[in-house]
């Protein structure tokens, strides 16, 4: 079959699907965690019991993770309706209502799913779609990641078909013209990298896709691989043709079993359709892709460390130059890009480099994908044009902070990035502005913090992560980060002196300069940015022994307000795991500070109409009769 025939077959299959009732269920890892598989089972049971012929498609994730499990029911000649927070109990209602009857069950709906002129789905009822621009996410949650025909029916592999008739140099020229920069973190110009690899001497050459997304709080690579693996594979094949490689590796971290499974199926289907293998589409080009699995090490995401891992060694980075494009995997020229970078490639080849270069800002072209986590109302994932302001992302897309709290800061790019405070909320998000502010796009993970989050504790958390993940090769990174962590622990425990701040800053600079790879270079970023923007908070911890956000355990105490305690209620007494709350029926309850594990259970269970439990910082502010082990219980 030639490509036109493959495409025709795919399109007619898609049309056949559209001609029948079909149900999409978001079944990526995030959907499954929210219970999507139980929902699918409930649909299967109900449909078979009622003898209804409808297809259930396990789609990926649209990025509306807060609304999972997400279900879209499509009826020919009627609307595609998107339902949110669907449980197995709600399934009969949907089937009886909309599939059998004509009631679209709007009380359970998030909105309608519409398709724009570029065949990108959107939900008009959600205003966030007005601010988003979905390129690499456009198929996510819409097509079946387990069926290559869905991808082909939406223009998939037409770019490959086109480029195989072009000289490889022309492709590199177009990628350069588009201004595409690598989406793995550093933002190196992709076209330039391709050119270096293409010009490098030595064969064979390799193409490696870096899907070792180790940053806690970033999950877009996982979502893309689980939702549209063919898009990444097509990008890799085009790259292989452009740099004249015949072998590619998809390196996926072992923590993503579903992504690995989806990629495995996708590779098999691409081979069957002759987009992969020998003599691709009859054009004489050979390219094969293998999956390599990580074994859990943050450092494996560093390019030279990743190469070492594929070679079966410990993930230790090496000095560059030579660049990987000259001396890479097995000592051969290697082109390594991130999942998202490869995803853009087919689109650039289809729509032209000028189209891509027309989106974004000065030196940051195209779109950026971010995962939104932390204290925002609508956690999930988004894709916006480069240069979109932080304010737009926080308020118009992520819905602002939960429970009416105030936005405090956002940590962008995980442990390698830095935090951006509320005062910089109008900053345009692109490679260069973020770098100026001391942060970076990095992995694209955004963690939003509100007034209840402590800047010092957050820095401590990232340093703790780094000390566990440092590979140990460079002294400054191996030992310096441990010292930084111990200084931060002293601060959060109220044991530091004000001079320690200066020491910490000096040491942070030393770690930056004395480390070989990106992990060490960027390890002090969380400290340096929080010091820069939240210096007051550090000083409060040190001088007043006070944690303004009431987070750091050693600096807070739980206290029950005697006038607010209802007395007859015993929620706190009965649930305290360490039996620290004392007070019989009818008595005011009191916390024994020595026994208290500061788990917050009493605060959680105290009925909202009383709100008698509070946190106090510094501990010295506790009313005097509550300090020490013996507690004084006032008689009712």
């Amino acid at each position, binding site marked *: 079959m030639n490509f036109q025939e493959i495409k025709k077959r795919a399109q007619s299959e898609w049309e056949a699907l559209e001609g029948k009732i079909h149900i999409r269920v978001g079944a990526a890892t995030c959907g499954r965690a929210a219970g999507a598989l139980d929902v699918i089972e409930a649909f299967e049971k109900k449909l078979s019991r009622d003898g209804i012929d409808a297809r259930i498609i396990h789609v990926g994730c649209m990025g509306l*993770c807060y609304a999972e499990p997400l279900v879209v029911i499509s009826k020919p000649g009627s609307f595609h309706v998107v339902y949110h927070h669907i449980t197995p109990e709600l399934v009969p209602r949907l089937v009886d209502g909309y599939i059998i009857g004509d009631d679209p069950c709007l009380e359970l709906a998030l909105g309608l799913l519409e398709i724009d002129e570029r065949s990108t789905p959107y939900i008009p009822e959600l205003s966030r779609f007005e601010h988003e621009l979905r390129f690499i996410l456009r198929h996510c949650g819409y097509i079946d990641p387990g069926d290559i025909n869905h991808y082909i029916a939406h223009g998939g592999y037409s770019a490959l078909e086109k480029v195989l008739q072009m000289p490889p140099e022309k492709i590199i020229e177009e990628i350069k013209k588009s201004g595409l920069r690598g989406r793995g973190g550093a933002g190196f110009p992709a076209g330039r990298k391709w050119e270096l690899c293409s010009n490098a001497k030595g064969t064979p050459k390799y193409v490696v896709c870096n899907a070792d997304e180790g940053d806690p709080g970033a*999950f877009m690579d996982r979502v893309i691989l689980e939702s549209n693996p063919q898009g990444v594979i097509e990008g890799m094949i085009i790259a292989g043709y452009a740099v004249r490689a015949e072998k590619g590796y998809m390196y996926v971290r072992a*923590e993503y079993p579903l992504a690995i499974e989806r990629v495995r199926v996708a590779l098999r289907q691409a081979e069957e359709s002759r987009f992969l293998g020998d003599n691709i589409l009859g054009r004489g080009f050979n390219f094969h892709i293998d999956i390599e699995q990580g074994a859990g090490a943050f450092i494996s995401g560093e390019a030279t460390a990743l190469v070492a891992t594929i070679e079966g060694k410990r993930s230790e980075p090496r000095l560059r130059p030579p660049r990987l494009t000259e001396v890479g995997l097995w000592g051969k020229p290697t082109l390594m890009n991130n999942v998202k970078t490869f995803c853009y490639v087919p689109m650039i080849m289809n729509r032209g480099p000028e189209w891509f270069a027309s989106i974004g800002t000065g030196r940051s072209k195209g779109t950026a994908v971010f995962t939104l*986590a932390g204290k925002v109302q609508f956690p*999930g994932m988004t894709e916006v044009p480069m240069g979109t302001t932080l304010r737009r992302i926080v308020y118009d897309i992520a819905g602002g902070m939960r429970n009416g709290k105030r936005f405090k800061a956002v940590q962008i790019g995980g442990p390698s990035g830095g935090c951006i405070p509320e005062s910089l909320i109008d900053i345009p998000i692109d490679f260069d502005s973020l770098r100026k502010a001391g942060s970076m796009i990095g992995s694209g993970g955004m963690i939003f913090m509100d007034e209840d989050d402590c800047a010092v504790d957050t820095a401590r958390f990232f340093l703790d992560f780094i000390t566990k993940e440092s590979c140990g090769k460079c002294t400054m990174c191996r030992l310096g980060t441990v010292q930084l962590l111990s200084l931060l622990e002293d601060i959060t425990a109220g044991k530091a002196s004000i001079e320690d701040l200066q020491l910490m800053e000096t040491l942070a600079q030393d770690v930056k300069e004395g480390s070989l790879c990106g992990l060490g270079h960027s390890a002090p970023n969380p400290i340096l940015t929080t010091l820069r923007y939240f210096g007051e908070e550090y000083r409060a911890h040190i001088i007043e022994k006070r944690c303004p956000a009431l987070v750091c355990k050693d600096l807070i105490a739980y206290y029950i307000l005697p006038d607010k305690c209802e007395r007859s209620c015993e929620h706190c007494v009965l649930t305290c*795991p360490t039996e620290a709350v004392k007070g019989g029926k009818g008595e005011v309850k009191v916390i024994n500070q020595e026994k208290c594990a500061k*788990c917050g259970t009493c605060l959680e269970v105290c009925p909202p109409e009383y709100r008698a439990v509070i946190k106090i910082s510094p501990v010295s502010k506790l009313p005097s009769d509550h300090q020490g082990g013996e507690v004084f219980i006032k008689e009712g």
Partner: protein
Amino acid sequence: MTRKEEEQLSAILEKHGRENNLIPLLLEIQKGLGYLPKEGLRKVADLLGMRAMDVWGVATFFNQFRHTPLGKNHVKVCMGTACHLAGGQVVLEAFERELDIKVGETKEDGSFSLERVACIGCCMLAPVVMIKDRIFSRMSSLKTEESLIPYRGEAKEED
């Protein structure tokens, strides 16, 4: 290693052959046995013609590799950024208290083991805990005991 583990290991090594890809082999052994026994690593080194120290070096470098058997019910507490902000540490401490083991340990009777993991990618449900294959979302110290009840029963029944 128990006898059963030894047999399992031999079968895996035999199937694998001498092809030099250490990490996938170690992952496979762990999938079969649940952990990487020290004597087993020696056999891997012999098979691949590597020095035992190089195999050991790789096996102790990566977080995925475990060197002690897991409990029947393995509890993973997520310590990713979102979970941390939502109180993951408190939840971890609550599990340590409830199970009466420290993180990284297995109960003497083999019923439970407790581990902290970096990020399981469901940040919107934070803080998250995984017991066996089930994910518990929006956890708190309070919900800890309740989440363990079905597994405690199960561990008893099997005894």
